[in-house]
């Protein structure tokens, strides 16, 4: 006999041979009787329609209210998510630093929260934290800027070359590729360069060209000359002069057979390109050719 043969017999799934064998067994009559009687059993009465009416009246009558609330719940969920996002981004943005950037041939004036002033030369960028200004007066500078610092706590200018710290003064910081110059016009400025601190009294400069500290003569003006639309140079390699020319007029400067390390002393106008080109070429005994936004400086030897 196969497994669960009683169940198979009841559902009529036994093979004829198995059925015959089962019929011969002693207990077959008992099972047959059980099968017959159990088929006459009945479950208690259950009135389907009455139960359905009861269900609808007593229980489901309340259900639609629950369903109607669902869209509102969804709306609340979305609203909460948006609120969190807005609040989050507000706090994120408010911690970001303020920053001002000037393009080539552009200048900008920045007023700091304590009324200190920054005049930003062409192709430069300053950034500072407006939120933490009261705790820490610190600006990060790329490029060149003139600072008029209101009296107060220590004011620091962070650059890639070094850090400049002051109390309240006017000073210029130029931080270019391979070139770092700090000029103090009023008060006292402290410059930390390669962990060496240098104190700059009013009317003195600190200059580093290609990693070397270079002596410079003191400026005889009360402001950097570029503030008055002139760029002045005191024994500065021609290469840096060309770079400044590029920034002030937003042009491209190339040179041919010109010694870019030749020291240049002089001034060029930041408003008149032709005058500026002459101011550079004449004392250096070189020629220039201007084509659109391109300037080529070349030595006199070449025709």
């Amino acid at each position, binding site marked *: 006999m196969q*497994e*669960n*043969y*009683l*169940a*198979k017999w*009841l*559902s009529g799934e036994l093979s004829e041979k198995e059925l015959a064998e089962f019929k011969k067994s002693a*207990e077959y009559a*008992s*099972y047959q*009787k*059980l099968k017959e*009687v*159990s*088929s*006459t*059993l*009945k*479950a*208690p*009465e*259950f009135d*389907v329609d009455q*139960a*359905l009416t*009861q*269900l609808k009246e*007593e*229980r*489901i009558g309340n*259900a639609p209210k*629950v369903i109607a609330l669902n869209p509102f719940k969804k709306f609340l969920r979305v609203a909460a998510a948006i609120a969190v996002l807005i609040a989050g981004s507000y706090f994120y943005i408010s911690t970001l630093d303020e920053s001002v950037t000037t393009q080539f041939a552009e200048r900008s004036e920045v007023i700091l929260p304590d009324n200190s002033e920054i005049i930003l030369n062409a192709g430069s960028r300053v950034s500072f934290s407006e939120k933490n200004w009261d705790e820490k007066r610190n600006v990060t500078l790329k490029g060149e800027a003139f600072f008029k610092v209101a009296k107060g706590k220590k004011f620091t200018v962070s650059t890639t070359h070094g850090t400049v710290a002051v109390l309240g003064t006017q000073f210029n910081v130029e931080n270019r590729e391979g070139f770092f110059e700090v000029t103090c016009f009023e008060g006292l400025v402290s410059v930390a360069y390669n962990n060496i601190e240098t104190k700059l009294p009013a009317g003195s400069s600190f200059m580093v060209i290609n990693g070397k500290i270079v002596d410079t003569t003191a400026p005889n003006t009360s402001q950097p000359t570029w503030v008055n639309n002139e760029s002045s140079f005191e024994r500065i390699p021609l290469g840096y002069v060309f770079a400044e020319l590029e920034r002030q007029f937003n042009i491209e400067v190339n040179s041919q057979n010109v010694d870019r390390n030749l020291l240049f002393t002089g001034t060029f106008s930041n408003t008149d390109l032709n005058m500026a080109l002459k101011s550079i070429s004449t004392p250096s005994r070189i020629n220039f050719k201007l084509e659109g936004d391109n300037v080529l400086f070349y030595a006199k030897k070449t025709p």
Partner: protein
Amino acid sequence: MNNVCEEQVFSSIFKANSKTVFNYIYYKFGNEEKAHDAVQEAFVKLWENCAKVLPEKAKSYLYTVASNTYLNVIKAEKVRLKYAKPSLEISNESPEFLLVEKEYQQKLDNALNNLPENQRTTFLLNRIDGKKYAEIAEMEGVSVKAIEKRMHLALKALREQIDGI
């Protein structure tokens, strides 16, 4: 689209299944009142979750909810099933025969009450509601083989009890 949330679909599911759900719980726990409540409970749950339950899944959902409703509550209660007696309309039987029949039914009732719950449910769903093993397997969430096993054991136990072995 057929959706359980539509009243017509829901009503037809109720009409097709409520009686079996009622019996199923009754066979399990032997309590008529609780079986009524279980039907109400199961269909209210179905209505509340009508958007999530597909019409073709509604059936097994109902049995699961119904049996879970009283899973812990009635376990301890002693099952006392009473089955509506088949009406003995055949009057030309002798009184002795009728007495023997009555006695047999008494024995059967007792034997059924003593069966394990899952064997009794399977046996009665098949005998009273005429459910195929496959259908019972679906309701109980087990294999057909398991239902056959329960049926086999139920038959064996019932005969042994009735015959006094």
